[in-house]
């Protein structure tokens, strides 16, 4: 056991946390130059865009919005969004720093999305699939009734259309402002995946940075094949919660994609530049065995 709990260290840690948070929140600013969050390298934003938002120097994978993800993967104009008009509702009258109703409204304006996931039918290299792309920019990708419902309907749609499901997760976990109802979305989405499996249709889960809490402990971990982007934080309980619980330093690389690969929890860690090609190979493999 390391004793790291002196007051001095505690302040130091707080400061370090603040710095990390500050950087994470920025993500990609609109400026011409972007500093890589990991290695600090100054990058010309056009170059970064053309490199699929991956730092050419250190391979840091920047977070993508759902729009960017679709543009990178789906065949042009093939993506047709479904259930776009489901919106969150403040049914508990929840009020923390801001009333939930207002938080929803502000997030819709800020993220230009109705909730934390975009779902639809599309094609990747002419292979039809049901696509769900979570968006961390909407309330930290938290799963409430809307995310749960859209994931479930996407799976149900895939069963009707007899096509595979691919979901890109990026989520801070359950949306606490919806109380127990957010927890129940874990049950609902996992049950739907059971039905998909009954229908012999594949589910490919792509875990991106970060995938945590109730999202990980439901559909995100249930892929026939689980892929992850390099360096992605993937966990049930976040590192800070664990540190507080066990009062021990965490091992290096803990809960990162590569660590999960080592521990047998995911099938591969795939660089963003190879993601499309890998998905196509997998989809083709499944295509061959289906009826």
């Amino acid at each position: 056991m390391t004793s790291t709990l002196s007051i001095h260290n505690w302040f130091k840690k707080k400061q370090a946390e603040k710095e990390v948070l500050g950087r994470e929140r920025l993500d990609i600013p609109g400026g011409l130059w972007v500093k890589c969050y990991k290695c600090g390298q100054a990058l010309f934003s056009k170059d970064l865009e053309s490199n699929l938002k991956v730092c050419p120097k250190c391979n840091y994978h920047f977070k993508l919005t759902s729009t960017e993800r679709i543009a990178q993967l789906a065949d042009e104009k093939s993506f047709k969004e479904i259930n776009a008009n489901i919106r969150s509702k403040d049914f508990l009258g929840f009020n923390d720093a801001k009333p939930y109703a207002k938080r929803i409204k502000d997030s819709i304006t800020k993220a230009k999305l109705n909730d934390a996931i975009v779902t639809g039918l599309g094609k990747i290299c002419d292979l039809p699939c049901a696509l769900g792309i979570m968006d961390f920019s909407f309330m930290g990708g938290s799963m409430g009734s809307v995310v749960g419902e859209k994931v479930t309907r996407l799976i149900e749609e895939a069963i009707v259309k007899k096509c595979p499901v691919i979901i890109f997760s990026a989520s801070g976990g359950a949306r606490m402002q919806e109380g127990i109802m957010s927890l129940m979305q874990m049950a609902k989405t996992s049950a739907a995946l059971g039905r998909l499996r009954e229908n012999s249709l594949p589910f490919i889960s792509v875990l991106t940075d970060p995938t945590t809490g109730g999202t990980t402990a439901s559909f995100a971990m249930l892929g026939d094949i689980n892929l992850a982007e390099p360096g992605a934080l993937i966990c049930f309980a976040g590192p800070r919660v664990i540190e507080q619980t066990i009062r021990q330093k965490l091992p290096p690389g803990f809960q990162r994609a590569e660590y999960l690969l080592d521990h047998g929890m995911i099938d591969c860690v795939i660089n963003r530049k190879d993601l499309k090609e890998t998905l196509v190979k997998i989809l083709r493999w499944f295509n061959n065995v289906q009826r």
Partner: protein
Amino acid sequence: MSKDKKEKRNLLAIEKPLEDLYQKLEDLKKLAEAGKMELTEEVRQMEKRIEAKRKDLFTNLTPIQTVQIARHLYRPTTLDYIGYIFEDFVELHGDRNFSDDPALVSGLAKLAGRSVVVLGQQKGKSTKENIARNFGMANPEGYRKALRVMRIAERYGRPIISFIDTPGAYCGIGAEERGQAEAIAKNLREMAELTVPFISIVTGEGGSGGALGIGMGNRVLMLEFAIYSVISPEGCASILFRDAKRANDAAVAMKITAKDLLELGIIDDIIKEPAGAAHNNPEQAAVNIKNALINNLEPLLTLSHRELIADRYNKFRKMGIFEEG
């Protein structure tokens, strides 16, 4: 241990107003014994007063007071209930992969003569016991053991009964490395497809994914003073309200009591607790649970495999409140 002694030891902050009355009752009894005075009527009156006061105290609990009761160190545990409710219990250990998790117990048992499988998180009643039981916080192997025994029940067409009482699934390095998220996720998917009747009862703390990980019954019941929530009130307060001391506000806001959850359609029924909550009369609490189990199991026993799966699927499929259009 005499009943009075037990009651005194079990007093919670909210039960403090009773302390005086208990003292008076004891004095009366002593007086009656020593002086051989005829005080039967007085004792009876005092007991009545205590009963009335207790009823009063427990009728209008705030959510955070309910949390205290749900977490009470002397609240009956899963093994207590198993002992009271079932016959011929044989505990089954181990997930056949890694180890046996003492925070989650399971086994074969008979409910009113019928073979069933029971399982649930197990808390301790002392610090020592709690350390051994990891405070009822199961590791992945606990959830995998749960699934293993559920599969036994399914193979032989026996109903499953799960008792939920946990602060949450354990968060530690080992738990993460061995796939806590995967273990819970898999249980959710598999529970949805069980071909046997399945009843879950929240008896104490229903702590988030750790609770749901064994909680997808065809019927989900809750003891009167149990709680069920997506995150602990303290956790919610420190994250959303930025102040762990606002746990009461968080408890109110999240709607975590049995009454609230029945209204939200999350649970199917509330099981009444005896006067002064389950810890004051575990035997009576167990009788109430047993009756609820038998009543709820009855209609499920007539359903086919497919109907049972559909019943469970539709139950959870409906959950969620949103706007459309």
